[in-house]
């Protein structure tokens, strides 16, 4: 099992990995600059981030996946749900140094905008200095899927409930991944966080 790093508990902003192996990092509603340094060969790092913005919440988040060692994989998934007048400013950088050959780096940011007053700024950057690598990043932003909402409503599920079901499904992807590391109570608490 991978070594679990809960950034909400460690309060660290820089995670330096000097040993081969599997790691998983998690952050929830944290602002700041988070640097992940992969310095050794054969490091496999998953990074999960969950953001739920309400009222006038404002998150300014920067992540850096810095690959120095060769043959590493880093995989970042950040999901956000934004209500009211919340703001989310996200900058994610994947930097692969020349020494990081045969590396894979992924970055995904998916956001749900639940209000027309929220503000979203997403900057998924790549700086690739090695050639024998594979990197992707993707970012999607939008509202809940109207077809899915409609379907649930035709099944006599109230709109509010249907919305909550879809949001739960959306953030459960992250909760499911970290459930193995965290106590059940904690994941349950997170799920409570997400409801409007």
């Amino acid at each position, binding site marked *: 099992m991978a070594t679990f790093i809960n950034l909400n508990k460690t309060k660290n902003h820089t995670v330096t990995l000097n040993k081969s192996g599997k790691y998983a990092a998690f952050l929830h509603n944290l602002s700041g600059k988070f640097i992940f340094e992969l310095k050794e060969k054969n490091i496999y790092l998953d990074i999960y981030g969950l953001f739920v913005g309400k009222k006038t919440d404002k998150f300014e988040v920067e992540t850096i996946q810095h690959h120095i060692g060769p043959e590493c994989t880093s995989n970042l998934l950040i999901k956000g749900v934004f209500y009211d007048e919340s703001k989310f400013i996200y900058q994610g950088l994947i930097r692969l140094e*020349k020494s990081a*050959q045969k590396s894979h780096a992924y970055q995904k940011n998916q956001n749900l*905008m*639940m*209000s*027309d007053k*929220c*503000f*979203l*700024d*997403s*900057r*998924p*950057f*790549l*700086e*690739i*200095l*090695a*050639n*024998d*690598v*594979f*990197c*992707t*990043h*993707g*970012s*999607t*932003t*939008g*509202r809940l899927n109207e077809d899915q909402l409609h379907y649930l409503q035709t099944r006599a599920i109230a709109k509010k409930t249907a919305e909550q079901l879809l949001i739960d499904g959306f953030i459960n992807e992250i909760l499911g991944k970290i459930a193995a590391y965290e106590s059940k109570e904690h994941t349950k608490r997170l799920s409570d966080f997400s409801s409007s």
Partner: protein
Amino acid sequence: MQQSNLDFEYKFGFSMPQKYTFKSKKGLDEGVVKMISQMKKEPVWMTEFRLKAYGIFKKKPMPDWGADLSKINFDSMYYYIKPTDKQVNSWEDLPAEIKNTYDRIGVPEAEKKFLAGVSAQYESEVVYESINKELNKQGVLFCDMDTGLKKYPHLVKKYFGTLIPPHDNKFAALNSATWSGGSFVYIPKGVKVKMPLQAYFRINAERFGQFERTLIIAEEGAYVHYIEGCTAPIYTTQSLHSAVVEIFVHKNARVRYTTVQNWSNNVYNLVTKRARADENAIMEWVDCNIGSKVTMKYPSVYLYGEGARGEVLSIAYAGKNQHQDAGAKMLHFAPRTSSRIISKSISKAGGRTSYRGLVQIMPGAKKSSVYVSCDALILDEKSRSDTYPYMKIKQNDVSIQHEATVEKLGEEKLFYLTSKGISKSDAEGLLVNGFIDPVVKEIPLEYSIELNRLINLEMSGSVG
């Protein structure tokens, strides 16, 4: 293993002896700006516009992001050169050296086949121009910008500098102060120009900055495809090319602007290109950056009208000592606007490509959609590729998608092709051409053939 290299002789890298009727002194000051305006016998408002822009240029700092521009020396450049005294309309009347230069790029050849009108820029004045009679009958105006200002001052004054004001950025200010040549295109209401309008640009004088200014106006329901292709001779000191292109696409109109940029590897290509799209208008930029030392260019579409659509399709190639910092900007101001950006970049032999883009959704731009896709190939370990997309979203009823990949050429594909007896460099050429094909197929045939040949040339190091 077969060696693939980039050390080919630059195809268009020749320079003609300079024979100029007038050349301004080195460097830029108010006197030079006034002199340019006087030489062109411009109206007072334009002289004032230039002087004001020069003041802004002096105050504006250099951009602190993007490519390295520290080697540009504004004081060692000439800002205005007038190659011949008057404009000529027929090919035979052109001076021999200029004709020679054009012959090598193939202007007359291309014209025979395809051209609706040629406006070839040699230094700062447009010296050769032929406009299809049919276009004239339709009321289409296509001339160089200086002539446009003389003959249609009201049209020019109404639009000039309104979309890209001098204070937009340092290089837009420099262009506004020193502009010379470029194209003026006006398409009246409902007129659809069937054949593309083309213009060729060249830089021939050493240390000479070329600051052409293009203004395209498509009235309601009009259509035009404008093509700009560049090649330039090789010189040892840096040249600066800093154009400003403003395009107005009115209701239901459609404009496509295709660029094939192949400056030689000593040119700084710092260009501001922007279009405004009104209700249900369509603006398309097809942007190919193959040459230059440094390019910084981000064609933009301001989607002001409901239902407007913007598109940027771009290819960037960076070889030895090249940095292509190119991309696109889409600003959504109105409901139901849509945009699409497809970017393909290739870096090789130590070259660096950077995609830099902005997608901004303003409040009220409901039901807008955006799709951005950036793919990059890195062909060797010396090269580098960056992706810097910015997304600012102030409206929730929208759909935004962005994706990017960076990879090397597929080894299995290369192996498969070489196992069929295709040489490694040919196989690389095939794969790279396949990679850029989605954009290349949007370019007119003669350009896409040229581009495919150029890619093969870059891959194999020999002229095919």
